[in-house]
């Protein structure tokens, strides 16, 4: 059928199935990939387009329905010569992090402005309420739209003429493509002849299976080119992010252990394979007794998921210091609690996608990832190839938060493209992404804390069980991190913390922003506040009294002579805390409103940057070409957090040149050295450290070659390099230098690996070279009749060591807080029940309060540039601060998350009954 419509000002004729989704037609037929597909259900708004003036989800519109209509996509919001003012505001304000939601945001904003030139903040929130963003916390998106419509809010224009760029809020170096819809994510750039792979998955928690007649199946479905099963894997059918614990099959062989586990890959032509009903795949299931809870898994006689793991325990973590019994004996006040948290889904807006292509005896994978090198090495083992035969080229990554560290789609397309010698792509559906990829560990935590009559903490005991799901993934990392962090940034002389990662036949728990520490902080920081109340001490003063200072030993016996920033964070928050308490208590006393109660809460965090007690180096290469171009080989994947920009800034200052002189290449396992994973809040700290070393080394080489003094400035004009020494400007003649194998006349390649030591049997040692610190202050209103929470304001103080890019730091903080709000109030993943974005709720633009950030710089010069990590710290204190504020407002303690209205209501009733 033919459909005629106007698209971005041009008349278009389409001959296609009129029930085809408009998203598909735009992306596949018209090559307009700025319109993203996040859910195919109208739940995420990433596909928003304007139809006859109205914002609509293109995934909910059939092509036949737009006959005669006028459509605008993100590509129609600017012309090729310039980007629109709205997009400019997005760029300048740092509204885009990963950028996958940005086309939907821009289009929604444009539709609003088309009807209302001067919207209020509320109207802006409403207009983008249908577009989910998981990175930014919406703040900078909203302020960009308000700025554009004339309501100027705070901006980060850099007027300072300092030659240094560290400390300046540079725009994202990769930002332009993110605000024009040009940026290519995993699903956006398949070769035209790519086949499509789809994965047949288990619909059960636990089952054995037999695959039926595949020859017949192929015959009945002529679009299928091949079906691949475990048998077709040339190398090891086993992977895992931690080699000692690797246990996960790429495709199950006879048994599946969680719902969504893959058993076969069906490859074929895009059009037919996309429509194939995989429920008809020939397989016989024999359902086994599931082991769905940690209790079931540890019960006597429970069936073992992995024969060599007794009691279904994957691993345990343990830290002990002092004498815990004595500590409690000497305690005047004791507070304790039991806490549970559910599975949390990462809910990045980009479902996993990518394609693989075979080039002779090498295989290339293009797609979203957080860990290209780790992926490369795993795929090599799976394919039975040397690592040099695998190339991973990350596309832009539409959010990761930990789940895109593990392999997911990668081996399927690698296997298919290798076997067929044709490019093969894959696009996970939202349900498939939610079902089959890792989650945040559900936790079951018991904590007990005691303090002396003056409020000094004398003892802390912590037992945490973490549901690690069917396979290891990052379970060991969670088990190791938790007991180290369960003390929080406090001085605790008598301490015992134990953690267990327990297998169940539920989704794999893996890495999610904080590796178990957010769950731990919920138990710790709420119990600490209760202990402070019991001791009759102000909650903030109690933390100040107990917080670590320079030189104090941590619970692992490590002490830092510099850089312990928690005290500074608490002191920065203190005046705001006092003011908030005053205002809340006066509201609660004076209001005639019997329904609303104001609450104020705080919580702290600390978080070790980099891997726990393990070497985790990053390497940066930087070269100078004959034409005076400085080329930065930057392998730290930027999943939205900003490493492309931050690493370039660090390098520029280290070389003593401006950012414009630097050309950025990578990430790409063939052309960038290994900068490790984007995880553990390590990129700014570790890869940044490598960039600083490499920059200093290249500078030394240039100055030596030019015979110039230490304080010389490097200036690039056209293709020439000049050295400026006071008022003298001398050209550096590079033309006689020979180029090396990389094409550089001068080059530096430097590695930074933060110093750590292993932990002994009592968990004593130096697990991290540096910790970052933070404090959140939450002000909220509890509707005590319904148990509904409205968060009014959050102030966040974070010690970042040295702020490389304040605007990007704010973006991280705002986004982390949004995830913390979700964790506290609404998020709960339940297999089979919440495998979509309308039953699994993440915060919308209307759920985020005004956020003020206070950046603290408590330098720690363990690294060459003084910066600490931040990415995970930012979400840790939010949830406990919210729970503390609920308790302040109502006396209610919620210990089973999320604090949905019914749970808050019940807790309020319980508190009332206890008081009566």
């Amino acid at each position, binding site marked *: *059928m033919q459909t005629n419509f106007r698209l971005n000002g041009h008349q278009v004729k389409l001959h296609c*199935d*009129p*029930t085809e*989704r408009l998203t598909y037609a735009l992306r596949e037929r018209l090559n307009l990939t700025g319109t993203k597909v996040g859910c*195919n*259900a*109208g*739940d995420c*708004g990433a596909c*928003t387009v304007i*139809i006859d003036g*109205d*914002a*609509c*989800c293109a*995934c*909910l*519109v*059939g092509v*036949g*329905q737009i*006959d005669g209509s006028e459509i605008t996509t993100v590509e129609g919001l600017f012309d090729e010569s310039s980007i629109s003012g709205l997009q400019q505001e997005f760029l300048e304000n740092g509204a885009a992090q990963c950028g996958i939601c940005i086309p939907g945001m821009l289009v*929604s904003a444009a*539709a609003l402005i088309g009807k209302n030139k001067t919207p209020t903040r509320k109207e802006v*929130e*409403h*207009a983008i*309420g*249908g577009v*989910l963003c998981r990175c930014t916390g919406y703040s900078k998106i909203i302020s960009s739209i308000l700025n554009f419509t004339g309501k100027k809010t705070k901006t980060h224009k850099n007027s300072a003429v300092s030659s240094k760029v560290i400390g300046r809020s540079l725009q994202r170096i990769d930002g332009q493509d993110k605000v024009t819809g040009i940026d290519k994510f995993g699903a956006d750039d398949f070769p035209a002849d790519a086949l499509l792979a789809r994965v047949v998955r288990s619909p059960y928690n636990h089952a054995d299976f037999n695959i039926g007649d595949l020859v017949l199946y192929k015959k009945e479905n002529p679009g299928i080119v091949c079906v691949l099963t475990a048998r077709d894997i040339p190398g090891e059918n086993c992977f895992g992010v931690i080699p000692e614990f690797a246990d996960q099959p790429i495709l199950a062989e006879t048994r599946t252990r969680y719902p969504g586990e893959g058993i076969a890959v069906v490859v074929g032509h895009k059009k037919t394979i*996309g*429509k*194939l*009903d*995989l*429920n008809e795949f020939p397989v016989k299931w024999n359902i086994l007794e599931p082991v769905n809870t940690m209790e079931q898994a540890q019960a006597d006689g429970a069936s073992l998921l992995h024969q060599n793991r007794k009691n279904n325990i994957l691993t345990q973590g343990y830290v002990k210091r002092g004498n815990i019994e004595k500590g409690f004996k000497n305690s005047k006040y004791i507070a304790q609690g039991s806490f549970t948290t559910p599975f949390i889904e990462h809910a990045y807006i980009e479902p996993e996608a990518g394609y693989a292509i075979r080039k002779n005896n090498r295989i290339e994978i293009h797609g979203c990832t957080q860990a290209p090198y780790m992926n490369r090495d795993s795929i090599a083992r799976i394919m039975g190839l040397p690592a040099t035969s695998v190339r991973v080229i990350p596309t832009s990554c539409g959010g990761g938060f930990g789940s895109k560290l593990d392999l997911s789609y990668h081996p399927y397309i690698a296997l298919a493209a290798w076997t067929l010698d044709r490019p093969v792509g894959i696009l996970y559906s939202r349900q498939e992404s939610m079902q089959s990829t890792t989650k945040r560990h559900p936790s079951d935590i018991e904590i007990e804390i005691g303090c002396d009559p003056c409020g000094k903490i004398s003892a802390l005991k912590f037992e945490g069980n973490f549901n690690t799901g069917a396979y290891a993934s990052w379970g060991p990392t969670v088990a190791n991190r938790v007991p180290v962090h369960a003390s929080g940034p406090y001085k605790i002389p008598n301490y015992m913390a134990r953690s267990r990662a327990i297998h169940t036949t539920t989704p794999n728990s893996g890495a999610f922003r904080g590796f178990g520490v957010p769950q731990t902080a919920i138990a710790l920081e709420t119990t600490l506040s209760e202990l402070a109340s019991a001791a009759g001490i102000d909650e903030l003063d109690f933390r100040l009294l107990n917080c670590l200072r320079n030189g104090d030993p941590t619970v692992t016996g490590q002490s830092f002579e510099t850089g312990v920033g928690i005290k500074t964070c608490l002191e920065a928050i203190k005046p705001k805390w006092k003011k908030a308490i005053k205002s809340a208590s006066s509201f609660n006393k004076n209001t005639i409103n019997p329904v609303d109660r104001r609450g104020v809460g705080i919580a702290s965090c600390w978080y070790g940057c980099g891997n726990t007690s393990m070497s985790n180096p990053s390497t940066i290469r930087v070269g100078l070409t004959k034409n005076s171009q400085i080329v930065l080989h930057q392998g730290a994947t930027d999943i939205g957090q900003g490493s492309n920009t931050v690493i370039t800034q660090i390098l520029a200052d280290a070389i003593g040149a401006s950012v414009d002189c630097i050309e950025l290449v990578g990430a790409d396992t063939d052309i960038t050295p290994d900068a490790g994973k984007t995880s553990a809040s390590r990129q700014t700290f570790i890869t940044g450290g490598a960039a600083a070393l490499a920059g200093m080394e290249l500078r030394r080489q240039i100055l030596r070659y030019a015979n110039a003094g230490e304080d010389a400035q490097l200036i690039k004009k056209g293709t020439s390099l000049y050295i400026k020494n006071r008022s003298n400007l001398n050209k550096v003649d590079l033309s006689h230098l020979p180029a090396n194998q990389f094409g550089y006349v001068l080059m530096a390649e430097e590695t930074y690996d933060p110093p750590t030591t292993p932990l002994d049997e009592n968990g004593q040692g130096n697990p991290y070279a540096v910790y970052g610190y933070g404090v959140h202050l939450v002000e909220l209103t509890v509707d005590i*009749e*319904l148990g*509904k929470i409205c968060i009014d304001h959050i102030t966040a103080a974070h010690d970042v060591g040295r702020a490389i890019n304040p605007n990007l730091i704010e973006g991280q903080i705002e986004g982390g807080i949004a995830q913390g709000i979700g964790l506290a*109030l*609404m998020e*709960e993943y*339940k297999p089979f*029940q*919440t495998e979509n974005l*309308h*039953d699994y*709720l993440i*915060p*919308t*633009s*209307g*759920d985020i309060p005004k956020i003020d950030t206070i950046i603290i710089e408590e330098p720690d010069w363990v690294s060459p540039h003084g910066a600490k990590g931040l990415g995970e710290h930012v979400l840790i204190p939010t949830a406990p601060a919210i729970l503390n504020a609920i308790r302040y407002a109502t006396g209610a303690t919620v210990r089973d998350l*999320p604090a*949905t*209205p*019914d749970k808050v*209501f*019940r807790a309020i009733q319980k508190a009332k009954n206890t008081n009566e």
Partner: protein
Amino acid sequence: MYARPKNIEEALSTLASDNWKVLAGGTDLFPNLKEGGVNFNILDISALADLRGIKETQAEWIIGALTTWADLEKTPLPRSFNALLQAGKEVGSIQIQNRGTIAGNLCNASPAADGVPPLLILEAKLDLVSTHGTRTIPLSKFIKGNRKTSRRMDEIVKCIRVPKKKCFGNSAFSKLGAREYMVISIVMTAARLEICQQNRIRESAIAIGACSETAQRMPSVEAAIKGKSIEEALGTISSEHVASLDPLSDIRAPREYRFYAAQQLIKRTLINCQKIEDNYAN
């Protein structure tokens, strides 16, 4: 097969010819597509321009079947429609409100359909048309259960009729969910109040959604508050008045909480009706 007729006669004769799924705004049909995509006949009625918009006759307000949630704001309507307007602003997101139709919301018959309580309190009726003619059914009879309606396969909803004699007073809508936008209700209530000069409730209509298989009118509450002032009414409402509900325990909330929240939400909706009254009075 796919058909997008330009007039209703053609639509009806098509519909009579085979089994068709009716597509209007698409906000329910597309998200519910199963593995394998569209493998059924689609009758796309979105080109039936006559069915879009709101008309007023002497006795009725008539909402055409293709009227979207966003369209509601384009027509000045009496205050008794406030509940429907407020519900319209809380359906999904702007993207959904721009495409989704009010009639489609009724036909989808979700227990948590935002459109049902506000139309129950207006005692709305639906015109169902087929090649056999037109029948008019009250909304309360049209929705027969979770995702079940009395629409026959050969019928389409042509319009929603609201009798003007049920358009007296103010109405208000309240929805309780765990987040601000794009949220499925834990409980929702709609109330319409006629308040006499002595500030007493002369007549009321109250409906609750998401607390039983289909949204319900609450005659027990209506009877209990008749003749009372709002303040008295708030003190009157108790758990026995909501005993006719049969809420589920699900991922959004447990049954007991829904019983309780329903009472609170009724009270708030009554207060909101009063606020609207006061705003108009001032």
